Structures are given as structure tokens and as C-alpha cells.
């Protein structure tokens, strides 16, 4: 049986993704900021034994919206094959949401309205007559709440029944008298001619021609009836133009839709004036986007987040570290074959252990970012910071991908799609790498641990992040002036109400991230670990001295070959090799260092041992220079691929490589020499 294909369409922040979650218990990311659902998502599940395929379209305010993701939604709705549209509506913002509903109705597809956030509306004292909405729009309407799961089964049942029914409910919205009068004439004409097109009713066709639907015009243009239709249309348009005092049919349609939406709302919504809904959000906004306090509060949040990541994360890290050391010992003692033991203990267990070690840090950081996104605070920050970002040639919305970049560059690159303007988007893409991602954290933590005291560690980490971000801004300005010149994208965005996300939601977001990080550790990084282990142990040389073995290994040879390039930055061949393996994934830098500095040890990589080795073998200035280089140079392999896709081609990846390597080299050179001079 072919699955029924259901498309979820709705404005941003109406809870489409959480509705999908409620319907399917699937793992999807849900956000309270426009543009979290960037790609169309497909999931399948059974309802009464019928496979359902759901496509979650990006939120769109209007079918004619201007952002890239709104275009994704539009193209899908217009050109793709699907069975039923679920129009998700925010019950607390009925009028605005109905505008999109009216546009969707003109697609002449089977459609069901899911009146979401019904529980929230009730709490705000908004009473909605669901049956009346159904009567006025002619569309099956169900009140649902993704949070309380109210109405979810009913919604699925109605979709199922509608899908099975042979006929589509015809569009039957009442326009103003002026429009209705003209529609009447044109409808009569189509009826008299017995003209048929798809499953459209005569009235639906009349609406299409009256509002100048280009696609429909193209279809009937060559038909014989077109000649007779034209004079009727001319008269109709003339009357309407005169009445509305404009010849812009889009403006007329907008006005019509607005009055229809208002009409529906006033006939279906009753409000208790006792409960004023805006108060809560307003009160919080008085503080959070306060003229003077807003920005400091935001910076405080960010600072607190990084402190938590470091301080709180340290506790489970000790246990994980000890766990892997123990595992290495236990496993190692059971393997007699020396080379095999070396592969498993020093290569695999040590490599993956070094990655898993940083899971607590990453989880804490992701919880913070998920909270920013789901509460609606993100858009406040965009409001606060647009003035600032705009000066650097960025958009207030650039803030979202940039902050996401602190977690992982992959979703960050994808989040740039909210930016409609090509240049704004490219600049943002190019500087996301300057926002140190979660995978760079292990490298920082390692080096800070080795070269700074525990008391200042949190602060040093904070400065690294801030320095990277500031450098990114300067680079953005440079790119705007020298490379991407041109007009700015308009800044018009919704500030959603504050919503407290459920624990389940946060859990889903964070666990999804954590799993994908671990999966990366299990596959990409594991493979890289084995490769590095091999490259550092082969070809075998006739020497008992392990450092000689390492120097002559493939890895050593590569490192030595690139020494002239890295020498001015104070790096020896070991650090050079670590940087090169880091191109695969940043976590591998730590794994490589673990292997390179712990040679000859029977036991697996031990964090304290590695710290001690680094401290002993690397000068302070070199360490600083190394941190700076890691901060700036090319993101990991996976992120690079996503970058190429989002930027629009591999040539951009080439530019990114040249751009980041050049900047990284210059900045490290400066940092190295300054530190040398000061110490």
C-alpha cells in the first residue's frame, strides 16, 4: 500500500514540529525561533495500519514569502505530489494564521486545520468555537495541543477519513459583496461552458482568474473559451479596481483576506478580558530587552553557560576517564599478540575514550543552546543585537546560526537559510567557523588544563570563545567591504511569546545531539583513530627507541614535511600532525596528541599523563599559538561538506580553506610572537 503523504504547513512558531512529535513520538528538533525546521522532514508511522509519510515544511508567513525556506515551502506545496495538507494554526494568533490558511485554500488540495496550542489559548482566556470555524471555512478543524496530546487521535482519524473520501471539499469562502458579484458572473460563465480543469469547481476557477493566478492563466490561455472569458474579466476587474482605488490585485487580495480573517475571528473567538495574555511576556521583556540591561544580561547568560560547561562538566569527566583507563587495562591483559594489543588499546580504546570524555561538556552546552532556542529568547537577542551586528555587515538573524555554531557548525550552516539575502547568508557562512564549536572544546580543555591553573580555567575558555567571535565579526566586516558588496536584507521578524519548554522536549533535542556526537565518535573518529595508529606505528623501523619509530612513521614523515610551514608558529612535527588529522574532525586532535605523547605506555591514554606530557614538552608560547590556530582553521570534514552544500558549491569550500588557513596562520604567528616577547 502506498503511504498517505501528509504535508504540515503553517507559520513559524506554531508548533508544527512538536505536533509531529506528538503524532509520531519521533525525534525531531522543535524550536521557538523561526527557521529551526529548515529541511523538509519525512517520517513514517502507522495509524490504523496505514503508513503515513509526514513532510514538515519550514514555517512560512505567506506563500509568497521571501526567505529561502519560505520558498522551499512554496515550491513543495505548488509542485509536489501529496495527499492532505495539515494547516497548523496557533490558536492564540488566529487572524494572522488564517491569512496563510486562506492562501493554502487556494491550492485546491484536501486540507485539515489543526488548531494548535488550544490549551494555551484556554489559559489565556480565549474561547474558540471550533465548529464555527469549520462552518465558515468549510475545512475539517480539530482543536489540538501538542503539549497535552489533546485531540491528536481525533486529528489522525479525520485525516484518515478525509484521505479515504473520494471528493475534496470545494473552496467556499465568502468574499466581500463587490468581489462576490464578479465571482458570480465568472462562475456562471464557466458553468455555462461546462469547462473543466482538474477537480476544480467553477467557483474555484473564477477565483483563480479574478485574482490573476498566473499558473491557471497559462493553463486556459490556449483554450477556445479564453477569448470569450476576456471581456467578462475586463469588466469585472474594472469594477473592482474602481471600488478599491488600486489596480494592484495583490493589494486587493490582501485586503480581502484580512477582512475575511477578521470576520472569522470575530465570529468564533470570545475573550475573557480578565485574563490579559501579554502580561507575562511583556513583564519578562521589560527586563530581558531593557535598554540598558538587555545586552549585559545576555552576555551574563553566555558567560554562565560556559562556566557551567567547564565546572560542572569536570565531575563526570573524571569518571569517564577512569573508566576507559580501566577498560584499556582489562582488555589489554587478555590480548597476547603485541601488535594487536597495541591497535586495540592504544589505537581504538584510547582514541574513542578521548572523544567520549568530552560528552558531558557537550551535553551541558547543548542544553543551554536548546533552552535559548525553545524559550523564544533567541529572537529577543536578535532584536537587541541587530544594531551591533548590522555594523559588521551582518544581520540580527545571523546571530542564530552564529550562536548555534558554538554547539556544532553543521546545524549552524543549515540555519543560515533563514537569511534571505544571498550575501548576508554567505558572509554568515564564512564566519561561523570562528565560533568555536563543541568539538574544539576538548582541545581547549586539554591545553587550558595543561597550561593554566584550575581557578582561571573557566575565564580562559570564555576569552577564547569571545576572541574567536570578535575576530569573526571583524572578518565579516572585511568580507562585506571587499568581497560581498550590496544591499542588506530587511529585518522584520516575529518575537514569539515566551514558552517554557517541557523537559521531554529538551531531552529530545539534547539526546539527539549527544547521539549524533557519539555516532561520530563511533564511526568517523574511530576510523581516523585506527588510521592514525597505523600511520604512527608503520613502517616498522629496526629500533627499540619508540621516538625513533614515531619519527620515521608515515605520520612523522607527513608532520616533518609540513614543518617549514608551521615552524614560524612554534609547532613541531607532532603538533603539525595533530592539526592535519584535525581536518577529519576536531576531536581527533586530542586523540592524535594522546597517541603521539603517550607512546611506549602499556596502559591506555590517561588524561593527567597527557596533560603532564604536554606541559613538559610544549613551550607556553607554542601552546597559545596552537590554541589560536585550532580556533580559526577549517572546520571538520562533515561540517565542510555541509558548508559546501549551503554555500552553493565546492569552490566555496576552496575559498573557505584558503581564507581560514591564511587567517589562522597570521593570527597564530602574531599570538606566538607576542607571547614570546611577554614571557
Amino acid at each position: 500500500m502506498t503511504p498517505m503523504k501528509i504535508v504540515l504547513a503553517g507559520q513559524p512558531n506554531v508548533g508544527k514540529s512538536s505536533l509531529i512529535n506528538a503524532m509520531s513520538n519521533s525525534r525531531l528538533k522543535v524550536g521557538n525561533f523561526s527557521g529551526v525546521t529548515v529541511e523538509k522532514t519525512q517520517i513514517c508511522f502507522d495509524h490504523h495500519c496505514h503508513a503515513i509519510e509526514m513532510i514538515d515544511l519550514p514555517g512560512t508567513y505567506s506563500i509568497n514569502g521571501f526567505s529561502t525556506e519560505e520558498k522551499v515551502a512554496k515550491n513543495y506545496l505548488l509542485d509536489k505530489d501529496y495527499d492532505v495538507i495539515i494547516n497548523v494554526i496557533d490558536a492564540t494568533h488566529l487572524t494572522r494564521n488564517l491569512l496563510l490558511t486562506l492562501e493554502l485554500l487556494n491550492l485546491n488540495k484536501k486540507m485539515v486545520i489543526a488548531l494548535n496550542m488550544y490549551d494555551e489559548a484556554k489559559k489565556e482566556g480565549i474561547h474558540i468555537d471550533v465548529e464555527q470555524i469549520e462552518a465558515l471555512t468549510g475545512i475539517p478543524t480539530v482543536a489540538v495541543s501538542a503539549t497535552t496530546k489533546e485531540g491528536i487521535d481525533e486529528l489522525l482519524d479525520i485525516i484518515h477519513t478525509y484521505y479515504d473520501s473520494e471528493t475534496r471539499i470545494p473552496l467556499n469562502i465568502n468574499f466581500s459583496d463587490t468581489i462576490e458579484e464578479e465571482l458570480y458572473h465568472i462562475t456562471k460563465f464557466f458553468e455555462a461552458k461546462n469547462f473543466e480543469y482538474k477537480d476544480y469547481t467553477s467557483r474555484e476557477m473564477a477565483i483563480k482568474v479574478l485574482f490573476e493566478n498566473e499558473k491557471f492563466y497559462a493553463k486556459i490561455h490556449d483554450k477556445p473559451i479564453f477569448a470569450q472569458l476576456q471581456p467578462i474579466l475586463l469588466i469585472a476587474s474594472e469594477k473592482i479596481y474602481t471600488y478599491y482605488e488600486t489596480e494592484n490585485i495583490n493589494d486587493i487580495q490582501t485586503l480581502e483576506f484580512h477582512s475575511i480573517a477578521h470576520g472569522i475571528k470575530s465570529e468564533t473567538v470570545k475573550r475573557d478580558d480578565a485574563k490579559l495574555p501579554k502580561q507575562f511576556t511583556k513583564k519578562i521583556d521589560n527586563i530581558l530587552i531593557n535598554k540598558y540591561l538587555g545586552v549585559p544580561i545576555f552576555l551574563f547568560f553566555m558567560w554562565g553557560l560556559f562556566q557551567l560547561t567547564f565546572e560542572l562538566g569536570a565531575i563526570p569527566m573524571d569518571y569517564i576517564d577512569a573508566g576507559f583507563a580501566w577498560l584499556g587495562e582489562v582488555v589489554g591483559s587478555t590480548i597476547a599478540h603485541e601488535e594487536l594489543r597495541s591497535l586495540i588499546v592504544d589505537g581504538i580504546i584510547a582514541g574513542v575514550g578521548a572523544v567520549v570524555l568530552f560528552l558531558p561538556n557537550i551535553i551541558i552546552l547543548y542544553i543551554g543552546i536548546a533552552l535559548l532556542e525553545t524559550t523564544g529568547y533567541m529572537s529577543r537577542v536578535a532584536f537587541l543585537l541587530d544594531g551591533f551586528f548590522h555594523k559588521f555587515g551582518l544581520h540580527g538573524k545571523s546571530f542564530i546560526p552564529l550562536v548555534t555554531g558554538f554547539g556544532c557548525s553543521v546545524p549552524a550552516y543549515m540555519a543560515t537559510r533563514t537569511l534571505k539575502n544571498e550575501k548576508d547568508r554567505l558572509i554568515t557562512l564564512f564566519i561561523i567557523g570562528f565560533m568555536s564549536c563543541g568539538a574544539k572544546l576538548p582541545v581547549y580543555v586539554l591545553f587550558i588544563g595543561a597550561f593554566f591553573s584550575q581557578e582561571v580555567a573557566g575565564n580562559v575558555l570564555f576569552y577564547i570563545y569571545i576572541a574567536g567571535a570578535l575576530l569573526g565579526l571583524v572578518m565579516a566586516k572585511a568580507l562585506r567591504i571587499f568581497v560581498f558588496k550590496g544591499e542588506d536584507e530587511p529585518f522584520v521578524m516575529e518575537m514569539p511569546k515566551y514558552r517554557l519548554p517541557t523537559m521531554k522536549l529538551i531531552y529530545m533535542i539534547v539526546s539527539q545531539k549527544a547521539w549524533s556526537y557519539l555516532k561520530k565518535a563511533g564511526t568517523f573518529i574511530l576510523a581516523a583513530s585506527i588510521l592514525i595508529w597505523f600511520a604512527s606505528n608503520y613502517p616498522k623501523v629496526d629500533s627499540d627507541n619508540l621516538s625513533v619509530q614515531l619519527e620515521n612513521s608515515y605520520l612523522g614523515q607527513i608532520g616533518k614535511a609540513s614543518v617549514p610551514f608551521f615552524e614560524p608558529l612554534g609547532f613541531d612535527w607532532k603538533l603539525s600532525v595533530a592539526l592535519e588529522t584535525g581536518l577529519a574532525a576536531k576531536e581527533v586532535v586530542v586523540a592524535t596528541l594522546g597517541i603521539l605523547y603517550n607512546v611506549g605506555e602499556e596502559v591506555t591514554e590517561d588524561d593527567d599523563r597527557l596533560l603532564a606530557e604536554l606541559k613538559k614538552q610544549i613551550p607556553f608560547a607554542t601552546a597559545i599559538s596552537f590554541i589560536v590556530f585550532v580556533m580559526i582553521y577549517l572546520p571538520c570534514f562533515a561540517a565542510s561538506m555541509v558548508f559546501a552544500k549551503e554555500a552553493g558549491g565546492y569552490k566555496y569550500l576552496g575559498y573557505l580553506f584558503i581564507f581560514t588557513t591564511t587567517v589562522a596562520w597570521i593570527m597564530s604567528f602574531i599570538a606566538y610572537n607576542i607571547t614570546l616577547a611577554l614571557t
Partner: protein
Amino acid sequence: MKLSDLNIDQNAVVEKITCNEELKQRFYSFGIFKGATLFVENISFSRNTIEINVEETSIALRMEEANSIEVTPKG
């Protein structure tokens, strides 16, 4: 008077929108069109962005965009 000339806590009625069709469409979908009532909720420190409320939706816009909305203050 322009929207960008208003201050916090002022009400106003939209008179005219002067900008390209794309931006106008976005304004429309937020309920900003001739005759709509709006309320200024917030203006950022550097007067770079303004937050208005239209039909119970809060919308943030840059002053440059606010410049293209002509309004008459009310009350």
C-alpha cells in the same frame, strides 16, 4: 510621520507603506497595512531596532524598514 519617529508606548495608525513588493508582502502577513493600528513596545538602546505590536503579535524591525511605514499617532 514615520513609524521610526515614534516613541515607546505610542499608538499609531498605518497610513501608507512605501517599499518594494517583497517587503510589503511580509508587512501584510504580519497585519501591517493601511488602516492597521500598531503600538510601539520597545526601541533598542541605539535606536537601531523597534518592536511593535500589531494584532497581538510582536514584531521587531530595523529602523530602515520602519522608515517605509507612514503613520498617524493616536491617543
